[in-house]
Every structure is written in structure tokens, then in C-alpha cells.
């Protein structure tokens, strides 16, 4: 408010509206206060009634017995309004699908956590540990989307009293998405006590989402005013909903004043969202680019530096992804760290397989690209079928660690997903490490020497055969690391490699064979181009356009963006 004086008319005007609205509210509050309090007393009453009438055991038995959505809704409300100390834990478990009941008679409500032999269960009544039971010995208390939304709201209302700012913020955000009249007193109380600005903003939005359905125009206008600083998609959806016309030209929102106020806020929101869309698209493009970079950078070594057309490159990625799966099988209780372990493990597994392939097959075929192509294609088929025989042809599920899930919400219109953010960083780190190995280490020096002039390197005393194996192993190992990243994005199955092999070759050829910087620029520019084309052309056409562009580009510059001299180029 202090700043309002120094700032121009716009703020002044809104301040005036807020003041007016507050005045109006104050009056309205007086009138409704007693009603709200009445409701509170009433709900408290019914809670006492419920607990007086029914013990915890009885309510839980009712929850187990409830079949229809409405019966379950009633029981959930009963638990929420009760003063059972375990109410919040039980509802939380129900929301997260961890609430089960045993087949005993009468059935017992239990919390169940996954265990290698089934579930490890504990009583919902007192938390007592009840040991481990088989998968089919307990049944889940199932819920549907309607109940999930109800629980989201109820739990959020409870969580508003939490000590932690993050919990309160999440609760406030959940209330925006599940608004209901009965949460209003709790929200208003929370607003009065809240100290964190961030939470306060979300709480006001939540309040607005409820007040917008109020009977009083002033409250509704105040709610719309509260919306003017947000880009939240639920708010946007609500405001857009008001502007919808039916067949006779009547607006969904009958109150003209409210509708126009909403339309104005909506217009501002849309203009801002448009801007963020461009930022978002760039991010999407860079993240696609970094996936391309990761998958292509290993190939840039085996194909680019060594000149081996390695059709089994995709399968090296697949091996890396399966390594991640196996690591998760070995350490089921440390999923969050499994990825960190999987990275070196995948590098070793794929690298070793790469060295075996090089020593066993490719070594005999240097200088015969066509035969190398066919032989490595054969190897790729063998590896695929081997994985099918060992792990079954079904896809395997690799769990995402919690720190790789969700997104970083900058505002309602722009949120960047964590897994993509990490992959961008990860791909840059891998590229940097690779450059370091090639440019600054002795092994790297030997690799470059062999690439540039094999005969000379040989006569200088470098064991070229050994260097070849190592280079191929390095390229394959990096493909394995890419596989770990891919396991977080897509299926882990025998066909994983095939879907990326074409893209990888495309990037390497476009970037210029043998040049890691070329690969970097090619991957990023293809990623961004693809993502800016996609909204107009659709995913299928965008891909075709990019492919056609590369074909034309290669006609013009056959050696790609950054041509480099090397064994392959000299042929």
C-alpha cells in the first residue's frame, strides 16, 4: 500500500477497488459472520455426534464396507470431521493408495507398504506393526477421481495448520484446485495467521476460487481482483468459463459487471501467457536437444572419430537402461540414489560390451564400411534378442527418483519439469567431461593421434589396436550413460535403441563428422527447431520437415556444420 502513492494510476485504481471491496466485505462479513460461525458450530456438533455415536473402529468398519462413491464420501467426511488423532494419517494413506484391509473377520484397516514378499502392514488404529503379508492377503480401500479430489481438499484444509511453509504452500495450491465452500473458514483463519507472502498469495487465490461462487457481487469482484496477479491455469479456466456463450448468445456468467471484470483480467493473463509460451518452447527445445546430444555424443566418437558406422549404438543405450533397471532391483530401498550408482555401472557395462564387439568383430572389418554396417546391424539384432530372452520381451518399469519428478513452478503459465532440467545439465556435464578426456589426458591425445594418422601414430609407438578398443569402449560407455537418462524419459525395453539410432546419426552427420562441438550445436538447433515447428505443423510433420531440411543441408555442405579432418574424412 505504501508504494501505491509513488506508482501510477493503475495501482492507485486497484487500491481503490480493493478498499471499496473491503468496505463492502466488512459489511457483508458482519452479516455472514454469524452464519459461518453457526456452520462451524454445526460441523463441530456433528463431529461430536459422530464420535459419540461411533467409535473409531466403527467408522473404519464403515469405510471398509462402503462400496458406492456416496457412501465412501460420507465416511470420509465423518473421519475428517472427527477428533480421531489418526484421522489425517488415515486420509493421507487413503489418498496415496496405502490403505488396505485384511481378510480377517472382522476386517482390520491397515497401512501397507510394498515389501519383497508382499506388503508390510501396520494397524491404522494404533500404528502397531502387524508383520508382512502376501499380495492377495489384503485388499485395497479403492477410491476414484471424485474421492481423490475430495481428499485433496480435506487434507489441504488440515495441512493449512502445518508448521512447515512448504506444506502450507502445497495445501494452499491444492485448495485452489479443489475449492469448496466448507473450507472457507479455515482459509480465512489461515490468511489471518499466515506469515509467508508466497503462501498468502496462494491462500488469497484459494479464497477467491470459493468467493467467486458467492451470492454477493462485491465478494465476487474482490475475488476477480485477487486473480489479477496470477497465471494459474485453474483460475484461467474459471475466468474463461465465464465468457462462454450458449447457443442463444447468453453468457455462462449472467452478471455483466462480473463478466467484464473477469474478461479484463483474462485478457492480461492471456497476453502474459503468450510471452511465457516462447520461453517454454525454448526450454522444450533445449531439453529435446540435450536428449539428442546425449544419444549422439557417443556416436560422435565411434562414428565421428573412428569412422565406424555402428548400428549397435542404440543397443548400447538399451544396455545402459537395463543396467539402471537391474541396479534398482538390487537396491529397492534406495531408489533415490540408484540413478547415481547406475551411471558408472552403465558406463562400465556398455563400455565393456563395446570393447568386446570391437575386439571380436569390428577390428577385422576396418576399411570396409559396408561390411561393418552389416555386422554391427547383426550385433544389434543379437543384443535385442538376447535381452528379450533374458529379461522377457515386456518393458521393464524403472521408477523415477523423487528428485526427478514434478516440476519447478515459476508461475502459473511456466513450469519446468525437473527431469528435463537435470538432463540438460547432465548432458552438458557429459560433453564437458568427454572434451576434457579427449583434449587434456594422455589417452585422449593417443586417440586423436590415431584418428588423424594411424600409420604415423603406430610408428611413434602407440598401440593403435589398444587405442581403437578404448575409443570404441568410451563411445559405447557414453551411450550407456545416455541409456540411464533415457530410462527416466521413456520405456525400458528391447526396442529402446531403435527409436534413437536414426536421430543420433542425423545429429552427428548434421553437426559434422568427428567434431564434438558440431554435435552439440546440431543437437541443440535441431531440438529447438523441432519444438518451434511442432505447435504449427504437429509432431509428425515437424519431424519430416527437420529430416528434409537435413537432407537438403547435406547436399549443400556434405561434411556438416563443422567439418573436421580425420581418418574417415580422408578416405
Amino acid at each position, binding site marked *: 500500500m505504501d508504494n501505491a502513492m509513488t506508482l501510477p494510476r493503475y495501482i492507485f485504481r486497484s487500491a481503490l477497488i480493493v478498499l471499496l471491496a473491503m468496505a463492502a466485505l466488512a459489511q457483508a462479513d458482519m452479516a455472514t459472520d454469524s452464519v459461518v460461525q453457526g456452520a462451524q458450530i454445526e460441523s463441530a456438533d456433528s463431529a461430536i455426534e459422530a464420535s459419540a455415536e461411533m467409535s473409531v473402529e466403527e467408522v473404519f468398519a464403515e469405510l471398509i464396507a462402503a462400496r458406492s462413491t456416496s457412501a465412501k464420501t460420507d465416511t470420509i467426511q465423518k473421519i475428517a470431521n472427527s477428533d480421531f488423532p489418526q484421522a489425517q494419517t488415515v486420509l493421507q494413506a487413503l489418498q496415496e493408495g496405502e490403505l488396505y484391509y485384511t481378510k480377517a473377520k472382522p476386517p482390520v484397516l491397515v497401512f501397507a507398504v510394498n515389501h519383497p514378499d508382499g506388503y508390510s502392514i501396520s494397524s491404522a488404529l494404533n500404528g502397531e506393526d502387524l508383520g508382512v503379508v502376501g499380495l492377495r492377503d489384503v485388499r485395497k480401500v479403492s477410491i476414484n477421481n471424485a474421492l481423490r479430489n475430495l481428499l485433496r481438499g480435506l487434507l489441504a484444509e488440515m495441512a493449512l495448520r502445518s508448521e512447515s511453509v512448504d506444506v502450507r504452500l502445497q495445501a494452499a495450491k491444492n485448495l485452489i484446485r479443489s475449492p469448496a465452500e466448507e473450507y472457507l473458514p479455515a482459509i480465512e483463519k489461515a490468511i489471518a495467521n499466515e506469515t509467508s507472502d508466497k503462501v498468502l498469495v496462494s491462500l488469497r487465490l484459494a479464497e477467491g476460487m470459493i468467493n467467486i461462487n458467492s451470492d454477493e457481487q462485491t465478494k465476487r469482484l474482490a475475488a476477480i481482483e485477487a486473480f489479477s496477479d496470477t497465471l494459474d491455469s485453474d483460475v484461467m479456466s474459471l475466468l474463461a468459463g465465464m465468457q462462454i456463450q450458449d447457443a442463444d448468445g447468453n453468457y455462462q456468467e449472467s452478471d455483466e459487471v462480473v463478466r467484464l471484470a473477469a474478461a479484463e483480467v483474462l485478457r492480461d493473463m492471456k497476453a502474459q501467457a503468450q510471452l511465457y509460451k516462447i520461453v517454454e518452447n525454448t526450454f522444450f527445445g533445449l531439453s529435446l536437444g540435450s536428449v539428442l546430444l546425449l544419444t549422439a555424443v557417443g556416436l560422435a566418437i565411434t562414428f565421428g572419430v573412428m569412422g565406424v558406422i555402428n548400428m549397435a549404438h542404440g543397443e548400447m543405450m538399451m544396455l545402459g537402461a537395463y543396467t539402471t533397471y537391474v541396479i534398482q532391483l538390487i537396491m529397492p530401498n534406495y531408489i533415490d540414489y540408484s540413478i547415481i550408482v547406475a551411471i558408472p555401472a552403465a558406463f562400465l557395462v556398455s563400455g565393456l560390451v563395446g570393447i568386446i564387439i570391437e575386439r571380436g568383430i569390428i577390428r577385422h572389418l576396418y576399411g570396409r564400411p559396408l561390411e561393418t554396417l552389416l555386422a554391427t546391424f547383426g550385433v544389434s539384432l543379437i543384443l535385442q534378442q538376447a535381452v528379450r530372452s533374458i529379461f522377457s520381451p515386456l518393458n521393464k*518399469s524403472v521408477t523415477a527418483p523423487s528428485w526427478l519428478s514434478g516440476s519447478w513452478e515459476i508461475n502459473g503459465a511456466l513450469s519446468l519439469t525437473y527431469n528435463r532440467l537435470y538432463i540438460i545439465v547432465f548432458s552438458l556435464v557429459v560433453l564437458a567431461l568427454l572434451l576434457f578426456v579427449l583434449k587434456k589426458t594422455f589417452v585422449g591425445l593417443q586417440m586423436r593421434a590415431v584418428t588423424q594418422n594411424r600409420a604415423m601414430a603406430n610408428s611413434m609407438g602407440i598401440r593403435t589396436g589398444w587405442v581403437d578398443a578404448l575409443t570404441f569402449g568410451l563411445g559405447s560407455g557414453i551411450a550407456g550413460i545416455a541409456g540411464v537418462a533415457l530410462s527416466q524419459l521413456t520405456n525400458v525395453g528391447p526396442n529402446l535403441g531403435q527409436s534413437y539410432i536414426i536421430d543420433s546419426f542425423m545429429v552427428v552427420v548434421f553437426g559434422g563428422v568427428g567434431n564434438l562441438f558440431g554435435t552439440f550445436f546440431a543437437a541443440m538447433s535441431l531440438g529447438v527447431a523441432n519444438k518451434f515447428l511442432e*505447435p504449427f505443423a504437429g509432431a509428425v510433420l515437424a519431424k519430416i520437415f527437420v529430416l528434409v531440411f537435413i537432407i537438403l543441408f547435406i547436399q549443400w555442405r556434405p561434411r556438416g556444420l563443422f567439418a573436421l579432418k580425420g581418418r574417415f574424412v580422408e578416405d
Partner: protein
Amino acid sequence: MESRKSIKTFAKRGGIALAAATLSLSASIAQAADTIKVGVLHSLSGTMAISETTLKDTVLMLVEEQNKKGGVLGKKLEPVVVDPASNWPLFAEKTKELLEKEKVDVIFGCWTSVSRKSVLPVIEELNGLLFYPVQYEGEESSKNVFYTGAAPNQQAIPAVDYLMSKDGGSVKRWVLAGTDYVYPRTTNKILEAYLKSKGVKSSDIMINYTPFGHSDWQTIVSDIKKFGSQGKKTAVVSTINGDANVPFYKELANQGISAGDIPVVAFSVGEEELSGFDTAPLVGHLAAWNYFMSAPSDANDAFIDKWLEFIGDKKRVTNDPMEATYIGFKMWVKAVEKAGTTDVDKVHDAIIGISVPNLTGGIATMLPNHHLTKPVLIGEIQDNGQFDIVWQTDGAVPGDAWTDFLPESAKLEADWKDPKIMCGNYNTETKKCSGQNY
């Protein structure tokens, strides 16, 4: 050294496998005279192996079970398994091999529509018998094929009806997302026509196609989010093909779209696919099928027990195409017993009208258009990879070969019983069958 050794043992094992294969081949020829041959035409390698291997095992299990009961017509059943390797033209060749060389009496097989289309000319020319167990886009009825999976009116349309209802959330705005091939394109064409007939405006329908195995869903999910924030309840109808689903659902979850906000109803995601997913991001999303492993019926419990025992792995699941295979197999056995012969034409005449119990507690009847009556179930995905059945049709829905919602198909009709029609595409206006065979 080690690599050389492994190559050697590999070669040795390969040799043994080859020898075993030749042996079993010659053994099968020797047995041929007093058995009834059942061809199994499912990909055991290549991209479709993921789905089709299970169906091969299902047929083998059913054959084994039937043989324990004494076979059919007093003869033992003998399965002949071939591997078309997810290679569409190879499907046609293998069909020819099964019919001409192996002289099988019936074939259970195919998954993708393109493989079925590849088999069609061969099976019609050589007058074979194919049971096709997968939900598909309809618009077909061949004399030699029995479609035991769902037609669009037995999966897509009831699912949309459910979402439009109050229970389903009174959805007003629709995203039709699919992989770019014949099944999603045809299904979406039918759905679009259906939605428009229900008064949905074209501005409330968004159609989107992606390539096979699409893995970068960022833009599309962001578009869906934007499309869904226009003030009307929005749902996604997904005909996205198996492999592309994991990244799709992951992206939905990561961008914060929950099933409560924008539910996704999928036609290609079943128990088997879910076993390869990290199901946490999928909980609450929907799928429409004619069978779920969680269906409460005694027949289903018995089937699951038998399957787990046969396959020897307690973690395996059952799914809709398996039920369709089961129904098809039972119907064929019943028809052969009714006809008293395995002769294709006689079995064909006998099978129309035959009823067998399905696994969800109802009855499946073979209709004159070679499709089945099926119940339609909507299930919500649970975090254990199973479905919680939230809705189902009152009774069985008869399968419709030609959809009523596309003008050029509405006038077509398939009837292989009525002697006046006897074709798969009778035009009710011109009173003629069109030139095509099906």
C-alpha cells in the same frame, strides 16, 4: 579370450537349438495324420513381441487344457507356432506356410491391423480360418476372419459416453490423441463424428497425432494443459500405441496434470502394458476394455490360476486380448464339435450363433457379422498395475462391423448367415455387395 569363448558357446547353443527345431519339425510331420492342427501366428521377435508373445502362450495353454480333456472329436490338438517377427509382409508368407505346408485347420493370430490386412488376401484365397483377438478400428468383415476383440462401438463409444455422464465428470471438451496409423485415425474419425452428433462443437475437439514410439511429449502435454484451461471440463481420449504411453503419462504427471483435472481414457493400455510402467503417475487415469484382470467372477479366478500355473511366474497378468483369445478358442472348439468336422465352411456355418461364457461373468455370442457381443468396462488405474472397475454397460453390446457414425459406413452391413446377403459389406441402399471380398 573370453569373447571368443562366449562366441563359441553361443554357436554351440545355436546349433543345438537348430537341431531341436528340425527334430520337432520332423516329429510334427510324423504326427500329422491323427491330430487337428492349430496354427499360432503371433510375433515372437521384433517390436510386437512385447504384446504377442503372451497370446502365443495363451493359445498353447488352451490347447494343452483341451488335450487334457481328450482333445476335439477324439483327436488331439497340435499347435504349430510360427514367428512372423513383427514384419507385416512376413505375416502373409507365414499364413501361406501354415495353410499350404502345415495344413492347419485354424489360425489364432495377428495383433496390429496392418498385419491382419496383410493376411486377409491369403486367408481368403486359401479359405483358411483366422481368429483375431485384438480391439480394432472396425470397417471390415471377412468371411474367413472372426473378430473376437472389440469393434469401436464396444470400446471407444461407450468410453466417451461414460465421460459425458455425470459419473465420468460431464466432460465437454475433448482431446483425441493417437499414434499416427490406421487404428487411431479411423477410431478418431468415428469419435469425432459421434461427438459432433452429440452437439460438441469442433472448437471443443482437439485432434493430435504423433509418430510411433514418440518420446518427447512436452509440447503436446503443454498444449493439452492450455486446451484444458478454457473453462470446460476436458478429457483426453488416447489411442496412443503401447510404447509411447510411458513418456506421455510421465510428462502429464511432471507437468502437474492429475487424473482429477484432465482424465485420460486409453484404449491401448492394459494390465500387460502397465506391468512395464512405473504406475505412480498413472493412478486415476482410465482405460476402456471388455475384460479386466480384476473382474470379479469365478471363471476369471479359475482362468488366472491356470495361467499363472502354466506360465510359472506369479507376477504375470492377464489382459483383454487374452480373454478374446480364450473366447475365440472356446467358440471354435464348440463349433467344430457341433459341425463334427474341421472343414472351414462347415465350421463357419456352425459358429454363427454359438455362445460361450466370457470371463467377466456374461455370455459372448458370435454374430452373423463375425463380431461378438461384449460387455464394456471402464477401469481406473491403480498403483499396483491393476484396474478398479468403476463403470460397466448394463448388458453385452453387439459388435458392429461398420460404424453408424460415418455416412459411407452407416449404409453398409455385414451378414454371413442370411442367404440373401452373405457378404461382409452389403450396401443397404443399392442392395448389393461391393466388389471387395470383405
